[in-house]
């Protein structure tokens, strides 16, 4: 990847070398994602088998995994060998229910169960953040006061009602907030953090490439 940045890799490695490597990485990376699901099923199935606390709920987790995954994995048409076998048992018109396309069982479960629940889980954070603002957001020191005042100003500026309120103090006040707080102080600090983090990422990459960093392999 590093060499391909500096040189014309087609001339060095022959055509498509980089393409192959990147294609392979996307394939191997896909398997890594499923690895975690095996652990979830194993842990929950064990809890069900041992009838540990809340086991009926854990059973529902395992059932949900299969309810989502199995229809997605079934063939959608007769074009494959698996499809020929499946659709000799059930009508071929049922094929649209399988796979991951629109109107499939997988798609329905995602749109009407999984997605609304995930949206709600994160929506609950609004209540917690409001409660935290009430209980913990204190002007205990000069630094904390600076943070607090900026937060209040930005909260006002980012909503139409607050912006209308700020305009009472001058028509350019909202523009000044965007210019000096967001494009001034904020850009400066974000840039400092970006540069610092990028230096860290670059040095870590170099350590990995030189074999100094091997913790990802479980070695010190």
């Amino acid at each position: 990847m590093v060499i391909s940045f500096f040189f014309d890799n087609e001339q060095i490695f022959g055509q498509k070398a980089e393409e192959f490597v990147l294609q392979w990485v996307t394939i191997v990376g896909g398997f890594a994602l499923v690895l975690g699901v095996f652990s979830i099923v194993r842990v929950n199935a064990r809890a069900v088998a041992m009838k540990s606390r809340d086991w009926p709920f854990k059973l529902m987790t395992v059932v949900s995994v299969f309810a989502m995954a199995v229809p997605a994995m079934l063939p959608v048409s007769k074009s494959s060998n698996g499809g020929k076998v499946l659709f000799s048992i059930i009508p071929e018109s049922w094929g649209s229910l399988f796979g991951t396309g629109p109107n499939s069982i997988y798609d329905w479960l995602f749109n009407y169960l999984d997605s609304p629940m995930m949206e709600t889980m994160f929506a609950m954070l609004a209540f917690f953040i409001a409660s935290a603002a009430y209980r913990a957001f204190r002007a205990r020191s000069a630094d904390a006061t600076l943070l607090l005042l900026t937060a209040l100003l930005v909260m006002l500026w980012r909503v139409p009602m607050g912006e209308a309120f700020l305009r009472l103090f001058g028509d350019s006040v909202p523009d000044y907030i965007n210019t000096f707080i967001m494009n001034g102080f904020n850009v400066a600090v974000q840039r400092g953090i970006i540069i610092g983090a990028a230096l860290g990422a670059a040095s870590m990459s170099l350590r990995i490439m030189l074999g100094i960093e091997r913790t990802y392999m479980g070695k010190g």
Partner: protein
Amino acid sequence: MLENLTFVEHFQIWLRAFLILSLFSFLYKDNIFYKFSEHIFAGLSAGYYVGLIWRSVIVQQLINPMFDNSEWWLVFPGILGVLMFARLKPKWTWVSRVSLAFVIGNTAGIYLISSLHGMIFKQIAPMMVSVNQGDGLEKILLALLVIVGVITTLVYFYFSKEHKGALGVTARVGIWFIMIAFGAHFGYTVMGRISLLIGRAEFLFYQWGGSLTQIF
């Protein structure tokens, strides 16, 4: 207002509303409805990964090209992928390191270049501005503010030397910059979280409410 809903549409709206309210019920206290929804949610999300990877990786990137286009060399990344599962047995964990090294090595190469070329150089370059007389006070002030802010922020995060003397003063200025930026970030975070709640409230009010008014 919603158009006349069919039975299936009513059912879909009520199902979503039930799950949303079950999860929100946790705000009052932990209960059986919350646990029910939470466990289904975890299972479905895990199942989603399996379905997606089966379709997009195993079928589309491996099986189809191998059998339809005779791209048999794809068996190698397939094997590397399967080796990942060796991690599930502690005795065989070492086998998975081959695949892991392949992915990590490749990603490290990409990160090295993107960090240096795409982040560091590209972020430093715009600070090398030439200020002209005609630029106006606002632009000059802003350019100065950013340069001072970047330097003092980096100094604040430099922990190899004790923050005393000139370094201490610079780091102190850095803290002020950081506090203002984090304040702005906090304001944005509050905004984001509230938006997510609005999304759910709009569903309950407009869609579930619409269904309710049509039924009753």
